[in-house]
């Protein structure tokens, strides 16, 4: 159960990460080792087992449809790497 370099590059793109050649080599090996290790889960027959997504069973947690004051716009933009006229500024998506 290995992982190919192409798969590593594809996953990196999905996660919006980029790596140098050496890093790709290293990650490919490390990821392959880890995936190899976790594959042992296949030893277990879980065909009749429901997955657990919540450690403590709960349901129906709600809030009322009430408006509360929003944050002052200065707070919203307080940590913005780039801002202009009350907006966050980002580079354009390439056309």
């Amino acid at each position, binding site marked *: 159960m290995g992982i190919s370099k192409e798969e590593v590059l594809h996953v990196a793109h999905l996660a919006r990460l980029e790596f140098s050649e050496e890093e790709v080599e290293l990650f490919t090996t490390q990821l392959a080792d880890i995936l190899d290790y976790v594959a042992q889960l296949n030893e277990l027959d879980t065909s009749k087992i429901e997955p657990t997504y919540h450690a403590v069973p709960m349901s*129906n947690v*709600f809030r009322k*449809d009430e408006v*509360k004051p929003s944050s002052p716009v200065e707070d*919203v933009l307080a940590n913005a790497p780039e801002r202009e006229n009350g907006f966050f500024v980002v580079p*354009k998506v390439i056309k």
Partner: protein
Amino acid sequence: MQFEAVIGLEVHAQLTTASKIFCSCSTAFGAAPNTHVCEVCMAAPGTLPVLNKKVVDYAIKLALATNATIHPVAVFARKNYFYPDLPKGYQISQYDLPIATGGYIQIEVGSQTKRIRLVRIHMEEDAGKLIHDEHRPVSFVDFNRTGVPLLEIVSEPDIRSPEEAVAYLKKLRAILRYLEICDGNMEEGSLRCDANISIRPLGSKELGTKVELKNMNSFKHVQRALEYEIRRQTALYLDGKEIIQETRLFDVEKGVTVSMRGKEEAHDYRYFPDPDLVPLKVDDQWVEDIRQTLPELPDVKKERFMKEYGLPAYDAEIIISSRHLAEFFEACVKIFPKPKIVSNWIMTEVLRELNREGKEIHETKLTPELFTELLKLLEDNVISSTAAKKVFSEVYKTGKRPAQIVEEQGLRQESDEETLRAICQKLVKEHPKEVEKYRSGKKGVIGFFVGQVMRETKGKANPKVVNKLLTELLESE
């Protein structure tokens, strides 16, 4: 070779809750950028979502109104992708276990009635707004809209023409507005539509390659985009060329669809149940409680109006297009039991004003009492139909009683035969040449006399009576 189009529509309806789906910021439209934002909806580190119960109420409402199956357990899932208007880097939506599946929307095209089946209805949050700068290579992000609740309604590909598509959208909008859960305004973005369309030879059971269409911002756009796409795909098919599975944008200016190929890539959304939200358990009692609040829905109301009030289908369709309008109609007919007259006036004068102002009837000064008072004055010949239109405008503008306006503006019609006869006689005497013309066969000259009487009476003469009297006078001598 004959072809048929196979169309499915994916509609997003923005819900009219006061607060957002996962935080308490206001959903009100038009605020200054980033002023309806808190740390939760801007995805600050460490923040968590909490579900607005009303959103579920509204989803259940729509499911009931479309005969969909409501699932006893529903789960929110994360749809992961990167875009600046999506602050968390994922959208909280639903995947495996939506709130409802199945159901249908009934449409009428011509005289045909057809059911368009639904695949599913689910809840999700809206993204923010991205504004592109014209000159510099930057874009601006406003998170006000992030977290506004949406219902996504997916239809089966049961739609067979652009007309059916528009009929579907109109009916869906009517239902949403009847339920008072969505404004249903495509131009404002509270109702959005994407289409999936393929074509196939008539009679074939196989599906052709489907193309996704986006960027249609009105019913007209939807119609034009689908029409164009049908032509495009048909031409390719006949040429023996391949139809590529892709997403195309509707170009409003040119009325064509344009490929997005190269700009878009296949998304791997990596859906998984959102660990920050717990499962939704919808029990029978909750559904029943919501069912109790359902209004009479458009289709049912239309049938009833046709039966009870004898309205033709076309008229009924218009009257029920807005629940408030339908209620107004019924209230009027209760007071003034002449449904055809009421419906005619609504379809002409009333709707003209409402459309001009972009208002709903209940938002205006026009009440059933005022309106029917006017209709009664007209019916009783107290005013002429021309005067009635004038009075209507005034009532609509000011909310004053029609009787008051008639008095104030001296619009009371003169219907007394004796009075009018005297005037007619006088004018006939004064215009012998025209009398000659009439008697020599030009019956249309009566209009001249009517006009003269009107002038003489400052428009107050009852035209019917005047006509009758003039005819008598002109014919007799």
